[in-house]
């Protein structure tokens, strides 16, 4: 009897220690968060010409100025692109920069109701189909094409084929999924790889190192189709205490002040340019070159106008059809209308009860009207 008692006591105390120690640590580390006074929001961004200004915006104090105005705290964190999307879907961050395509196939398709509050820019030549030996689009079938599959690169390639009447050739394309971190080396290293689809600055890198490579097609031929957005989780935006709306106002205000500096001609422009270039360790010259092929909405007016234009619906439709064709909306999505998009005019593309992505022009319009 004694043995059982003493044995089980030492055993149970061991179990108690094993269970409670981690719990204790967990509580200790997590507790302070609950007491943080002003609402805090985290924005994830990744390296791209149109998103680098977020880095400058946080560095220069513009963001803090706007956040203070609305009594909130906004943190800006840099991620790899894929990781930023993962973090956004996992609800670890509140807002994230992404393209309209990823907004559809990552958060929206994963059931995370998302709202695009800023249309920052569209790719106007940043993405390109590159080829050696003066190949033409009609000669692509059968040749290995290096690209990151299921991204805007593949979308661009399909659009290139379709716009040149080569839709029938699409199934014959031989796509070689190549990580963006290795695509430059893989393409330049082997002359047998004749075609690649990628984006800037990788495009510039390839073109500058091999004069035999020519761009066959680029995103300037499909303006406004590849959009770069700032997306907020709808539940954050619509928080009953109104802090979400404050966040949206603050970041929109900060964004257009930053863009104004960047595209203006005042003394701050040089600072904004070098600050944004520093975000990706680029030189100012290289960054400027990237901006040339990025259509940055320099004013809230132009962005709001673009967001409320009926043409946006047609462009988004092309993208969502692409996502559906490639099963990017999920294996069990049976209809393209299952992931619906709500537009500023209240119209819905897809099933009304399944709105997952909201193109919201409210805050851009407020900025345009100077109401922020």
């Amino acid at each position, binding site marked *: 009897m004694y*043995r*059982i008692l003493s044995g089980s006591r030492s055993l149970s105390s061991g179990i108690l220690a094993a269970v409670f120690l981690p719990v204790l640590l967990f509580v200790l580390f997590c507790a302070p968060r609950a007491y943080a006074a002003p609402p805090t929001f985290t924005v994830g961004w990744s390296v791209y010409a149109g998103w680098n200004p977020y880095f400058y915006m946080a560095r220069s104090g513009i963001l803090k100025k706007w956040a203070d105005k609305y009594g909130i705290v906004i943190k800006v964190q840099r991620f790899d692109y894929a990781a930023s999307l*993962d973090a956004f879907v996992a609800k670890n961050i509140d807002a994230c920069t992404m393209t309209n395509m990823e907004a559809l196939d990552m958060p929206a398709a994963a059931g995370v109701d998302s709202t695009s509050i800023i249309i920052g820019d569209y790719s106007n030549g940043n993405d390109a189909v590159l080829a050696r030996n003066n190949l033409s689009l009609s000669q692509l079938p059968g040749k290995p094409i290096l690209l990151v599959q299921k991204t805007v690169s593949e979308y661009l390639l399909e659009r290139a084929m379709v716009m040149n009447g080569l839709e029938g050739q699409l199934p014959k394309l031989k796509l070689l999924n190549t990580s963006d971190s290795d695509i430059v*080396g893989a393409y330049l290293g082997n002359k047998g790889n004749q075609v690649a689809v990628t984006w800037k600055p990788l495009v510039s890198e390839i073109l500058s190192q091999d004069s035999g490579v020519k761009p066959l097609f680029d995103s300037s031929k499909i303006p406004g189709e590849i959009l770069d957005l700032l997306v907020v989780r709808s539940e954050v935006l619509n928080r009953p205490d109104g802090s979400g709306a404050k966040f949206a106002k603050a970041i929109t205000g900060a964004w257009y002040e930053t863009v104004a500096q960047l595209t203006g001609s005042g003394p701050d422009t040089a600072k904004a340019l070098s600050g944004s270039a520093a975000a990706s360790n680029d030189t100012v010259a290289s960054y400027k070159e990237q901006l040339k092929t990025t259509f940055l909405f320099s004013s809230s007016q132009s962005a709001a106008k673009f967001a409320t234009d009926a043409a946006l619906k047609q462009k988004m439709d092309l993208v969502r059809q692409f996502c559906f064709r490639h*099963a990017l909306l999920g294996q*069990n999505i049976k209809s393209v209308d299952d992931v619906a998009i709500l537009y500023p005019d209240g119209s819905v593309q897809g099933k009304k009860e399944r709105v997952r992505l909201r193109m919201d022009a409210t805050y851009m319009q407020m900025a345009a009207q100077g109401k922020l």
Partner: protein
Amino acid sequence: MNTAFHPADLAGIQVRPSRLWTQSLGWILFAVGIALYAQFSIARHKENPEDRVVPSAQQLIQGIKSAALESAEEDDPVDANAPLIERFSHSMLWKDTLSSSKRFLIALVLLIPAILLGLHMAVFPYFGALCLRFVTFFDKIVALSLLPILFIVFGIEEWSKIALMVIGVAPTLILDTFNIAKGVPREQIVKAFTLKSSDIDVTYRIVLKQVLPQIINSVRLNLKPLALFLFAGEMIAATDGLAYRIALMRRHMGMDIILPYVLWVALLLFLADAILRFTNRRLHPWYQPL
């Protein structure tokens, strides 16, 4: 002698659990893992019914179905009423398994020269002196960092991935074979020479034959690194393969496909290991592991 079970025995060293205990305890952590997953998944689905990060059982079954029974995206569609085998043979799971296995097997075959190299290094002193330092150095090189060079030398398709696997695993295998073969008692080699063996006899019929079971065990341990390098290669650049699909699915959070794939890969590796273990026991009944 059948003493009652005391709870305190669970933490004792000098206890002899019954077969029933050992068998059932072995499954507990699996059950706990599944329960934790289910709980996590249910919680997330309560919040967001379309969550794709931790798919529900239903989503997983749907994922398995589309992976194993629906034709791959790049393949012609197959009739939904066709026999299961035919549907499976057109599925992306099967096609990816085929192409990954092909790479895996080629790499395994290419490791045979590595084993022979290690053997010769151990048996022939001059050859060992020539190679040992270099191989030891080469073993410390992180093969993945050589990838851009591999792309240039081997092209971006099959051979660069196979080369990555071979370069990644071969030095370890060479050194391991070297050490194992060095471990053959000197007496055995002396004895073999007094029994009129030639150098070839000693190398292949005495040393290799004796160490083969240990080498096969070493290969078994290296299956995982081999798969790791294969996956690294396929994720970076590929047109098919198990890791290629996982990389693609990651792009839009297709965890409903990724999880079955991960389990499938685990199963395949387990099977490969079991086959090697079984073969080893069958071929070498005399082998008495310490």
